[in-house]
């Protein structure tokens, strides 16, 4: 009886210790556009100056969000891929960004400017993509394993969506409290 309770205690303690080993970044969901999770709310709060807020559609097959950090400096997500490798892509949502030598390209979003910077195509695809808008910036960084097709970056990049801060504030006021996030 005693040894059983000791074993149970040890198992529970081990489980709790293992859970506690997860940092904040390993327990947050990615800020997806369709989820009922509260993660998008703190993502909105992470860049209070931004007029537009980023979110992500369901990821293409083979991709998964590995870490999600949301805090006073912004929202940062890294992605693992079964073909492009660990941390093959990152997306950052911040108040501002340095676009370096990136070239402006046509954009798919209103009120958003898009810039591309291809660093390497073969054998590894490496590139940066910037979306700059009023009060904020979203940066994609791709750093694939050798032989992973560059088209994967397009697939993943297409999951990005924006919604306006005003819309989310209005939604929040309707469902929770008469305050802006």
């Amino acid at each position, binding site marked *: 009886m*005693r040894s059983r309770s000791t074993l149970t205690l040890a198992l529970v*303690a*081990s489980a*709790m*210790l*293992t*859970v*506690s*080993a*997860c*940092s*904040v970044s390993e*327990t*947050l*969901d990615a800020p997806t556009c369709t989820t009922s*999770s*509260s*993660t998008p*709310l*703190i993502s909105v*709060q992470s860049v*209070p100056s931004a007029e537009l807020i980023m979110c992500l559609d369901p990821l293409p097959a083979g991709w998964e969000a590995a870490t999600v*950090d*949301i*805090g*006073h400096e912004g929202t940062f997500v890294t992605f693992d891929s079964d073909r492009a490798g660990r941390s093959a892509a990152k997306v950052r949502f911040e108040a501002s960004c340095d676009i370096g030598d990136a070239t402006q390209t046509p954009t798919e979003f209103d009120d958003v400017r898009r810039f591309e910077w291809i660093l390497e195509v073969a054998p590894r695809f490496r590139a940066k993509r910037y979306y700059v808008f009023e009060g904020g910036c979203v940066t994609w960084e791709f750093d694939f394993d050798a032989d992973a097709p560059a088209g994967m970056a397009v697939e993943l990049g297409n999951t990005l969506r924006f919604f306006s801060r005003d819309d989310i504030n209005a939604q*929040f006021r309707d*469902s*929770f*409290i008469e*305050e*802006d*996030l």
Partner: protein
Amino acid sequence: MTPADTTRTRSVHGTRVRRPSGEPPPLPKELNRVAVFWLGAFVAWAIIWLWVFLSDAPAIWITERDLEMMRPIVDRRVDWLTSLTEQTNAHVLTGTTFIVGWVTILGGLATKRIRHVVLFFAALALSSGIVTGIAPEIGRPRPIGIERLGEWEGFAQPSRPLTLLTVAVVGAGQTLAPSGVIRRRWYVLAGVFIAWCSFAQVYLGVEHPTDGDAAVSVGVAVPLILFRLGAPERVFPVAYRTGKTAHLDVTGERGVAIVGALQDQLGLEVTGLEPVGLAGSAGSTPLRVHVADGPDVFAKLYARNHLRSDRSYKLVRTLMYGQLEDEHRFSSVRRLVQHEDHMLRVMRDGGIDTLAPMGVVEITPDREYLLVTEFLTGAVEISDVDVTDDLIDQGLRNVRALWDAGLAHRDIKPANVMVLDGRLRLIDAGFGEVRPSPWRQAVDLANMMLVLALRATPERVYERAATWFSEDEIAEAFAASRGVTLPSALRADVRRDGRRLLERFRALAPPHEPVAIQRWSFRRIALSLWVGLVVAFLALLFLGNLPAIGLWP
């Protein structure tokens, strides 16, 4: 009187009293009121979290109250206070957790409070696990409609930095601060500091007041309860007095309980008790008990810390030497004390001059017991008297009697060989064993001869031993004996003596091949691998947890 009352009446037979069913033992096991209060606070928060998880209504109500409290504060921000709170938020809060955490771990290790350090780490990890598990489920954003000036990460409730800080300071108090004034002062200081940090978080708009409240509830309840269960102050006191940590405080409520228990269970009217012979005892707390109408008695107090010491000792011996002898651990304090009481009686029946047992007294069921025997008033250790041939013969006769009765004492050292009125008494049967290995019996002989030789010449002891044992038996005893087979106190005495007693005895005895003391078995190999795996797992867990529990920048 109703029949129900009758069942609770104490049954008095002679001078002894039977504790009726339902009546608490002399020293009941209990969480104190402070621990119960914080456990209640934690449970209250758990209920709130469950409610919030199921419905938005309580979350809205709590958030509205939080914002009402916050607005007057954030609306009156002033530059100097903003600067101060920003420093607190960015550096002081997490820096204090880091410093207090490491000081506690290193201080605990330096003062050999391994149990406290393990519990401290477990409290940090468990609290961190609770926050990690709860925060995403609650999903509380940072304060809304308020400008946030400080640093933050993740969801707001419960506040992770305040939880870890609270666990660190409470755990530090439990690990390093002696109970009483010093610990109370530490907690007051820590409380003020936590309140300041919580205020800074609210002032900067990064947390609601209730985020800090919830964090403090978790941060106090978890370490307090873990320490109460795993290292209760009564059994594992934090003290910086000299002496062994095995010795328990017998003043206060434990002292009162002992006096009452001796009265009820053995019919002894106790007028006082005092620790005695602490230097020679590492496995229990020995006491001299003054009795009103009779001679003093001797009592050994056993508690869970002694049981655990016994387990650790046996585990280390098994790892280092294999199954040299019976290394099976006791499963409870009751069985430990039962064993010693039984061994005393078996030895006495076997003609060994030991102490007359008087019985076992229960202090806290399964946790604390007293083994009571006669007290040798005026007795001195053998190392404090001139050892005559008669005393040598008595010592050797006792070993012969042990052999003849199929027993081993296993802890023959000067502190356990007492002399009273010219009569030698072999005390402390706690390590005694029935039907020991021949090796173990031989070691008893060697140890007794070494004890006797500390105050006599080895030649004289050898000459007398040859009348009780064959020369081959003596040769076997010293072939089986080496540093690790000597109790540590005897080893120290022999080293201090400087006459190389072991070598001199070996030179006197006929040649004998050394008796191997390493025993290899599948069990020993498997146990070594298991212990290695557990240690590696715990080390990895410890290192992996450092960032999450605030002990890695």
